[in-house]
């Protein structure tokens, strides 16, 4: 089957939505709004994250919402800034009002140095939010046991990390992501730390359902070109996964019948 044909039937379903693109993107850290919109369009992403903050009364923030809605992107607000479950639930309820969506990227990372997610507060918040009807996508460490608990709590997907947020270090958690992917009955979206298109392709080849990329695109020399590169890498990785990767071996397994050819040559020289 040609990939285009394969691709047509390969939609990712999360909650009540189906996605053709398996590259989700963030809106943070871009130099300006124009570049952000151009990069997000080039990524073909259908789900983009946003944050919420207390309004600074002295100064007016750029309206980044209008161009996102105009371009038909689904919005995924996050709970960034929440330090515990209670604050995360409050942030999710505010985000639902602000963006009129019950989708929420649940993230609770009280430590500003590594921004690692708090598993206990995240699970508590996930249970509360799922029972309130939210479509919950929790950002977590690559912990297979926690991911099963979050699935049981009613989360729509899990978002385990490859490396700390914004670190661009790539997939440092590969062995554990493999276990999460093997065990999950809900989509697995590898989030955080993906620094280059090859990292994204690697995650997709492993069988991740999607990846979320922000920093690597936003801080690139050319964010629009990098966005396209990530889109291609995600497609290539997904196609590689669907095509079925060959098994690995520590010994060489010849791809060409070299021996026969050499023996024939020796015969000729005699």
């Amino acid at each position: 089957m040609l990939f285009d044909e394969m691709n047509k039937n390969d939609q990712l379903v999360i909650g009540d939505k189906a996605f053709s693109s398996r590259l989700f993107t963030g809106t943070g850290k871009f130099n300006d709004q124009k570049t952000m919109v151009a990069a997000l369009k080039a990524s073909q992403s259908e789900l983009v994250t946003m944050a919420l903050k207390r309004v600074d009364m002295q100064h007016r923030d750029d309206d980044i919402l209008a161009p996102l809605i105009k371009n038909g992107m689904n919005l995924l607000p996050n709970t960034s800034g929440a330090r515990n479950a209670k604050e995360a639930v409050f942030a999710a309820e505010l985000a639902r009002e602000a963006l009129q969506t019950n989708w929420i990227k649940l993230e609770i990372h009280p430590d500003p140095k590594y921004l690692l997610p708090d598993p206990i507060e995240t699970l508590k918040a996930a249970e509360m939010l799922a029972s309130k009807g939210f479509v919950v996508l929790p950002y977590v460490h690559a912990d297979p046991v926690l991911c099963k608990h979050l699935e049981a709590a009613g989360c729509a997907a899990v978002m385990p990390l490859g490396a700390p947020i914004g670190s661009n270090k790539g997939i440092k958690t590969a062995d554990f992501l493999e276990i999460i992917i093997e065990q999950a009955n809900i989509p697995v979206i590898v989030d955080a730390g993906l620094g280059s298109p090859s990292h994204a392709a690697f995650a997709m080849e492993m069988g991740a359902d999607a990846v979320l990329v922000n920093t690597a695109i936003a801080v690139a020399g050319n964010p629009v070109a990098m966005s396209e590169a990530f889109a291609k890498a995600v497609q290539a990785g997904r196609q590689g996964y669907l095509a079925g990767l060959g098994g690995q071996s520590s010994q060489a397994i010849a791809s060409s019948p070299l021996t026969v050819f050499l023996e024939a040559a020796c015969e000729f020289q005699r």
Partner: protein
Amino acid sequence: MKIHVNEQIVELADNSNIEQLLTYLDKPLMGSAIAVNQEIISRSHWADTILNEGDNISLFQAIAGG
């Protein structure tokens, strides 16, 4: 009447509602969320929620983020 919006005192006409407050502050309706005395007010009630002297308003807005 005087109310507090994100820790700042704002002088507003009596019997103003939330929509009128946002317009007065020149803040966009889209992408905003609001809590009055720690209680989140749903968008559908912004026009009929009348503010009172001394109310504590928390105003939030969607911004870029990952």
